[in-house]
């Protein structure tokens, strides 16, 4: 299937090196990629004529698997790629519902981030579905017991998956 992907900043080799720096006492056995769905929604933040100096744009990021909302800051570059369907996580949140719920969810964050003096009108402008790559890393410890980690291929953060 064809997907719109956020370009990874970390290759699998870089990721392995970064994780190895945390500890030498584990072995990476395998690493696979998985794509996590997000919806990027651009809103116009309208404060009216008198407070127009506060007018701006805000970008909301919706986690389309769990339905979590976040105010987004920077994005990397996007690229269209062809991927096998089993590597792509399904979209579990309806696009229309995600867009409809966003203003309420992020209004407080927008007001805090932009220090707005009153509640703004948040007007939908555009949206774009994209996928972020993560690496699923299979490791073993000294005794050969398996555990897994998840590596964010864009930001370089990683976390234990199931230990």
């Amino acid at each position, binding site marked *: 299937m064809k997907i719109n992907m956020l370009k990874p900043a970390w290759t699998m080799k870089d990721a392995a090196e970064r994780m190895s720096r*945390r*500890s*030498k*006492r*584990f072995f990476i056995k*395998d690493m*696979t990629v*998985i794509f*996590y769905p997000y919806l990027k929604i651009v809103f116009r933040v309208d404060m009216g004529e008198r407070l127009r100096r506060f007018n701006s744009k805000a970008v909301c990021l919706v*986690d389309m*698997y*769990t*339905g*979590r909302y976040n105010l987004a800051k920077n994005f990397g570059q996007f690229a269209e790629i062809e991927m096998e369907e*089993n*590597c792509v*996580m*399904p979209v579990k949140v309806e696009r229309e519902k995600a867009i409809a719920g966003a203003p309420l969810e992020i209004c407080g964050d927008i007001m805090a981030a932009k220090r707005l003096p009153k509640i703004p009108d948040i007007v939908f402008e555009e949206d774009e579905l994209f996928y972020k790559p*993560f690496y*699923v890393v*299979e490791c073993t*410890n*000294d*005794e050969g*017991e*398996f*555990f*897994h*980690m*998840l590596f*964010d291929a864009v*930001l370089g*953060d*990683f*976390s*234990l*998956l*199931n*230990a």
Partner: protein
Amino acid sequence: MTEYIVLGVYLVAMIAIGIYWGKKSKDSESYLLGGRKIGSFITALTLQTTSMSGYMFMGGPAQAYKEGYFTLWYAVGDGGGAIFNIGILGKRMRRLSYYLGCLSPIEYLERRYPSPATRAIAGLIAIVFVYGYVLAQFLAAGKTMATLLHIPLHVALIVGTGVIIFYTFAGGYLAVAWTDFFQGILMVAAMIMIFVSAMTQLGGLQGMNEKLTALDPTLTGLWGRGDMYLGQWGVVAGAVLIYLIGYMGLPHVVIRHMAMESPRLAKKSLVIATIWNQMFIFIPYLIGLMGIVLIPNLNDPEMVVLEMAYKLLPSVIAAIVLVGIMSAIMSTADAQLMLMGTMLGRDIYQRYINKDATDKQLMFVSRVCVLCVGVLSTAIALIQPPGVFSLVVFSFSALGCAFLPSYICAVWWKKANPTGCIASMICGCLTSVIWSATGLSSVTGFHEFFAGIIVSWAAMIIGSQFGKGTPKEILDLVDRAGCNIKLPAGLATVNCKQIAPETAGVLSFLKESSYMEENGLQPV
């Protein structure tokens, strides 16, 4: 008037928690198990408050008031209950339930001991006896409110149970766990206040013992008032064991292990629960003992805690004690109500009526079941079945004897198979019921729990020698559930908060999909 205000504030707070968490429960896993994201503190307190029930405010102290120091045998067992419960089952059950992908404690048994009969029998036993428990708690809530606020029983029942039904219906497991957390704090605070002021009046433990001995020397002995249990070690063993290991057989208690955020939290939960236990368990019994000296000739010993509160504390504090009693009752009733919803929705509706039920349908049916069971129980409680606490002990004993060996062997004994599980459930439950119904405890000197649990274990061990063994893939999972992965130093704390939600999302996807298998990876 003060009681009305304090109780009103408390009930409104419980409703608010229900509404708040209702909005957060978006799928069946979050409604039925809190999305398996319950932290160590909440796990510890919800486990303990669910276990304790109104018995600790009414039944326990009343027993101490009637039998003296003998009742501390129950407290001794109860004090170590959390260590046994979380230590033996906690981590392993959390892991295995996750590997098996189950949401209810009955479904867990069926998947560990795969046989259609496992679920049918376990479901039947659980539904009948948990329902008995729900009924008893509802009745206790109504009776307490009616007695203390001087309002008619039917009004008290409708108000008290209405609040429990509402927040359980609306908020699901998360509301139940969070209300339990606050209720746990209230319960301890209420008990400590009475305990400290009574101790001050009596001149400490020594003063209390001297006064008790002056009244009746057998009150401070270990065989009960008038040495009524002299030499009956079977009764003593039952009294210690019922709360020491009994909780491991209660479905509404063990489901708390399944909802833990991570198996690693089990150790921390164990420490918190044990500390809470030591702060709480002995106090109700000691208050009952102090009541013998401070309020002799009490008509209804079940009211000893409250009478002490009104005698020793200002009215506002006494009202908080009333709220503490309601908390103890409600924290158990809500958990049982929730479990009834889970079992009827997941184990009956999805299993037998609509196998292809969507997540939304399952959540809806579970909610409706919570509502129906709640309303039905209230209606039956209005007719008032006999004896609250006899119903509790009867149900507790039957559930414990039916399920305890099955839950323990599920994670500790690989040879345990469906035949053993079924035999253990039937024999344990029947022995406990027959022992109670025919009054064999007094004839044989064996507590019904003690007798039931011996038969149940024997049936598990003998039954497991016959019939089909458990499939290898399940035994592999049992092995994995018992395996503590030793993480290298430096990796043990790798938990990036930035990607925590994604980590949970990916984990859930990997679990549900065939991704790991298709990519030649080990299952998560």
